[in-house]
């Protein structure tokens, strides 16, 4: 029998070598390269990937923005951004290697020919750096600019290599606009080439939610309406709008946080086990949850807007006093809602969600509150310090998981107190948690869309949000209704009090 030629055999020399997540040669184009996101997140993420040799040697970045700048000026600006915001020490040799592939194109796409400059630059990178026609287009631009760029670049796709498009949130401003945007993008790009980014999904602790649920046999049997009393998900920020008045006045908390981050956290908490960890298996399960989700009515959605108050002892202005905000603005900076997931696992189990700006502290948590023990055989006095079991997933800060359990207070008699058993992510694994953008950019280069949002997911999220905000068009809220530095309007407390529950104590 003749042996197959070596070129068709599997490479035997790879046996035993661990798979490394290194991307293929490619060029990444960042539209909106002079913006805050590029400097604070994208370039520090690229540097962190380069620091760990996760970028291919044949890699290039093209920054595109309106601001006139030379290649060298852009490089220097990004070098400073990496030095200021990077999580790793700054190593000149790492930067030099990355900087060799950095180019800049000053273009406003309303200019005739602006897109051709970008294409020419990318073609030149192919020749100079061997980026092989592989393209990542990162749209870090305002929503109004997305369509123009998609059409311009979609019409100029390369014939060789792959093309992937990363679209920043917000993806549309309602269901109709999201559908329209999906249609436009899909005219030029296949769904598997579209990476709608929600950076929350890139956070280690969010991914750990899936591991916690589906790699441990002890949680899943009790992860349902039989044992769970309710779920509370909090995305709290102590910051205000930080100069983003133009964006926030349009979006409000519901479009900024609820439509994407919060609903994704609900979906990850409530989803059924996927059959595998492939992109479509995971997203299929999330979509089922989003389809099954509803809020029981306007009474179960609370909105608020902060007035003046104190954060960390410092006096801060109210939302309407922030620069760029209308003095009679009715934009919500706080949203709380009760949601239900109508399926066998979760029927009648409330998911309480809340998000707000200028709350007392920054915190993102998912709290699974279990039902009380049916018949504790202790005297009532001894149970005074006992609270229900809560599995608390800390997304940020203090990344980790805590379980609140009842324990006997040492000493004579029998007194029970609730104590927390903590698993701190940074305590068990001290390799340094990668920034969400590092993970997501690399995933995109590798073509893995598991942690990105699919078109139908986005549309389901918008459908729910549209239903939540529809009644708001009819009434005029009495804003401001909570002081900066407090946990939101009184109506939010009432939302849970009506059900005989309360928000978690902090």
């Amino acid at each position, binding site marked *: 029998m003749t042996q197959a*030629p*070596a*070129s068709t*055999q599997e*490479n*035997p*020399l*790879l*046996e*035993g*070598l*661990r798979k*490394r997540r*290194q991307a293929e040669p490619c060029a990444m184009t960042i539209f909106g390269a002079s913006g805050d996101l590029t400097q604070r997140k994208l370039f520090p993420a690229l540097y962190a990937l380069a620091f*760990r*040799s*996760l970028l291919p040697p044949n890699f290039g970045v093209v920054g595109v923005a309106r601001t006139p700048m030379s290649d060298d000026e852009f490089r220097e600006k990004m070098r400073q951004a990496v030095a200021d915001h990077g999580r790793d020490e700054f190593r000149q040799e790492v930067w030099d290697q990355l900087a060799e592939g950095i180019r800049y194109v000053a273009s406003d796409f309303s200019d005739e020919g602006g897109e051709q400059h970008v294409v020419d630059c990318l073609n030149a990178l192919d020749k100079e750096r061997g980026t092989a026609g592989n393209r990542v287009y990162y749209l870090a631009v305002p929503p109004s600019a997305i369509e123009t760029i998609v059409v311009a670049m979609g019409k100029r796709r390369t014939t060789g290599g792959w093309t992937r498009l990363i679209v920043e949130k917000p993806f549309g401003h309602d269901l109709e606009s999201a559908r329209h945007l999906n249609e436009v993008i899909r005219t030029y790009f296949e769904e598997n080439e579209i990476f709608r980014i929600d950076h929350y999904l890139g956070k280690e602790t969010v991914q750990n939610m899936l591991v916690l649920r589906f790699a441990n046999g002890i949680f899943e049997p009790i992860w349902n309406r039989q044992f769970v009393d309710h779920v509370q998900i909090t995305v709290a920020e102590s910051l205000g709008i930080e100069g983003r008045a133009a964006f926030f006045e349009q979006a409000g908390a519901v479009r900024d946080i609820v439509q994407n981050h919060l609903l994704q956290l609900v979906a990850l908490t409530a989803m059924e086990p996927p059959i595998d960890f492939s992109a479509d298996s995971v997203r299929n399960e999330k979509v089922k949850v989003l389809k099954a989700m509803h809020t029981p009515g306007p009474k179960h959605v609370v909105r608020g807007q902060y007035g003046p108050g104190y954060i960390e002892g410092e006096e801060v202005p109210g939302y309407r006093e922030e620069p760029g905000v209308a003095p009679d603005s009715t934009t919500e900076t706080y949203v709380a809602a009760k949601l239900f997931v109508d399926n066998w696992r979760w029927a009648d189990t409330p998911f309480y969600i809340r998000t707000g700006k200028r709350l007392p502290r920054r915190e993102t948590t998912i709290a699974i509150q279990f039902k009380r023990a049916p018949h504790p055989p202790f005297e009532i006095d001894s149970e005074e310090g006992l609270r229900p079991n809560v599995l608390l997933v800390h997304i940020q*800060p*203090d990344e980790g998981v805590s379980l609140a359990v009842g324990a006997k207070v040492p000493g004579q008699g029998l007194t029970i107190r609730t104590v927390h058993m*903590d698993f*701190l992510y*940074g*305590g*068990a*694994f*001290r*390799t*340094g948690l990668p920034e969400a953008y590092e993970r997501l950019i690399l995933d995109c280069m590798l073509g893995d869309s598991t942690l990105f949002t699919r078109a139908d997911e986005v549309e389901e999220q918008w459908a729910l949000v549209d239903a939540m905000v529809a009644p708001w068009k009819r009434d005029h809220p009495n804003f401001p209704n909570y002081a900066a530095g407090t946990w939101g309007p009184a109506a939010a407390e009432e939302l849970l009090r009506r059900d005989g529950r309360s928000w978690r104590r902090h």
Partner: protein
Amino acid sequence: MAENVTIRDVERELGDLRAATTQPGEHPRLRTSVMTLMAWVPPNWVDAATETLAGLAERHPSRTILLFPQPDDPRDALDAEVDLRCFLRGGEEQQVCSEVISIRLCGRRSSAPATVVEPLLVADLPVFLRWRGQCPFGAPELEELVDIADRLVVDTSEWPDAEVAYERLAELLDRIVVSDIAWARTEPWRRGVAALWPDVANASSVRVAGPPVEALLLGRWLSARLGREVELQREPAGEIELVEVDGRQAVPVRFERESSSDLLSEQLEIFSRDRAYEEVVRSFSSAAI
């Protein structure tokens, strides 16, 4: 180091130390472990071991048990010291602590270490055994510790006559998973050679400028993987500087920095067997010739 102690003394001291380091009003210091790391450190390896282990606890929170054999000590006793190494979590107030237990095994205790360490292993977590220097194959101390560990980590470049000792190491492979730091050092070059496939499918020679053990491992690896005799030509060098297969130069593919701590740290993250390495080690045994 306290002299003539018992394991109960060690356990009590650990408990006291944990309690004492938390002041009223402070966040509790968390004890975190992902493994028990035992290190067998003969006297001439103490400095090197200390250097490698510095910072390792921060990367791999574990209960570390350092065993210092002193077979020539006239006493039949244990001396011990316990230390709680606490690290601030980046930007947070909470501290995470790992326990380091140093035990001097005096006299006959040097050849019966298992009963000393077994009570101190963290239950249900993997046990790694780092053996500094040449493994004394057949000696009771190695035999005992291999039986309680899940993974043996060696650096065969520390062995004076590795080529002969691999045959004995092969005998251990059925009992314990083995990691070799010398083998880990060849990884970037193995990746570089793998990138030359299929041009090297019929290779007949490999030229390595590097230390003897690493060169030997690379030569045996290529022979084993290609299923053909590949002649090794070695040029002395302090570390691997060149690998050439039939005149084709391999470009090393490096991912991380490679200090001794980095290399050990990487081995502590691996749980599976490395079949390619085991094949290389077994190729040294007389049965394979």
